[in-house]
């Protein structure tokens, strides 16, 4: 480098993908338009993939006939019941495992052994126990929600900064108050994260359970439409599921924003 005098070159650019909300919306709209165009020109045969407007009109038809609400209502009832049951029980066990050595020693091996089982596999057993009706489906969902909630709650309690607990102890705060004032609020973000996963598992399970022997529910709708090659109804059902997923995720997001304002 024999240069006697040289400007300092700029070398800090890149690796900073910006969100570009605008481009995202354009891209999304563009995809929908391209899809519609491909369908209209016959490039994408209706038989294999319905056009967006066909899906919309299928939704409208089903809504008018009430079929939509029947399927949606059935699925939502199952999810809500199963989710509440499973989340409540999972929370109790998870907190206990996070706080008490004994609960952990007994609970953890069981949870670890049962966690990797896809809960849908328990549906046949639950049908034997509870019959083919609602109970077995709700129980499947509850089980599917129970385990991730319990594990998330335990992990969240483990993750509560020990220094905060020691701090409270150093001020003479009694143990029960420490649970309420330190452990629970500190574990809340992790628990909500666990519930988010649990909710998406509940959605998978309700779909699968409804596909395996239910008359109503979005899962039954989708399978039936698929078997009848009614692709417009099928994709409409898939859109419903996507919306349900987005709604749940939005709901938990709302909860997070309310409960975790301090973050």
């Amino acid at each position, binding site marked *: 480098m024999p240069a006697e005098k040289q400007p300092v070159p700029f070398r800090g650019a890149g690796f900073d993908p910006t969100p570009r909300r605008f481009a995202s919306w354009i891209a999304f709209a563009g995809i929908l338009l391209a899809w519609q165009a491909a369908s209209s020109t016959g490039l994408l045969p209706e038989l294999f993939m319905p056009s967006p407007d066909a899906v919309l009109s299928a939704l409208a038809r089903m809504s008018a006939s009430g079929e939509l609400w029947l399927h949606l209502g059935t699925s939502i009832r199952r999810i809500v019941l199963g989710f509440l049951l499973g989340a409540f029980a999972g929370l109790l066990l998870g907190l206990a495992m996070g706080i008490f050595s004994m609960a952990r020693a007994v609970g953890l091996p069981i949870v670890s052994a049962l966690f990797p089982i896809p809960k849908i596999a328990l549906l046949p057993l639950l049908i034997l126990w509870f019959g083919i009706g609602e109970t077995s489906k709700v129980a499947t969902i509850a089980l599917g929600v129970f385990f991730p909630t319990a594990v998330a709650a335990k992990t969240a309690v483990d993750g509560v*900064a020990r*220094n*905060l607990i*020691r*701090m*409270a*102890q*150093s*001020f*003479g*705060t*009694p143990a029960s*108050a420490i649970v309420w*004032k*330190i452990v629970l*609020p*500190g574990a*809340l973000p992790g628990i909500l994260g666990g519930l988010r996963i649990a909710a998406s598992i509940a959605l998978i399970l309700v779909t699968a359970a409804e596909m395996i022997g239910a008359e109503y529910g979005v899962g039954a709708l989708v399978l039936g439409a698929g078997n009848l090659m009614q692709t417009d109804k099928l994709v409409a059902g898939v859109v419903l599921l996507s919306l349900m997923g987005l709604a749940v995720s939005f709901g938990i997001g709302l909860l997070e924003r309310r409960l*975790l304002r*301090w*973050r």
Partner: protein
Amino acid sequence: MQLIARAVGHRYGALEVLAGIDIEVREGETLALIGPSGCGKSTLLGILGGMIEASAGSVELRGVPPAGCLNPLTYVFQDFALLPWRSVADNVALGLEHHAIGRRERKERIEAVLALTGLGDFADAYPRQLSGGMRQRVGIARAIAVRPAVLLMDEPLSALDAQTRELLQEELTAIWARERTTTVYVTHNLTEALHLADRVAVLSRRPGRLKQILEVPIPREERASPAHAPMLAQLHAALWDQIRVEAAAADREVADAG
């Protein structure tokens, strides 16, 4: 009140961390505790404060606690240990809950300590909205609110940047001048120890033993003056000689041999 440790020793499993520590913290004084990394300073402070059960020896408090004292031995933590989900005022309130004081007195005490630490305008702010220096001020306010007999501070300023540290040192000096709280102050920073403490206790490397207790013979208010600079520099050099070799060894020690 006085805090007296007698023949205190501690082991974590097979690791001997402290051995035969006899220390007497005098009423109203600030005792700085220095020593190489890992020599057991935090452990000793924990034992003094009743947060760690010593393997050997005993600790006791002597004298009459100050009026309105709710928690004789009170900590100020290096990492501030604020509850992120509580506002500044509610964080200070934590130490007052579960103690027999009325709602009104609690409110008055909170207001008083927030004013004292210059946080009056931030009573409703959450910790994430504060700078590091302000967070530690909340930690100090919370500790003072319970009117402790002895304040235990474990490197309270070491998580702050140099400028904020100097500022808080000045404020601590002011608070001590007013409250005259007995204080044990753990630090790595010799300059800080010489700036704040009445006496400096030096621990040897692990297992920590009391190597020396050094009186700082200059009134706290005058230590900033250039006239005393050579003397402080000498004290600094003396202390640094006592721990430099061990500090170097500790720094070279592989933190996580694996």
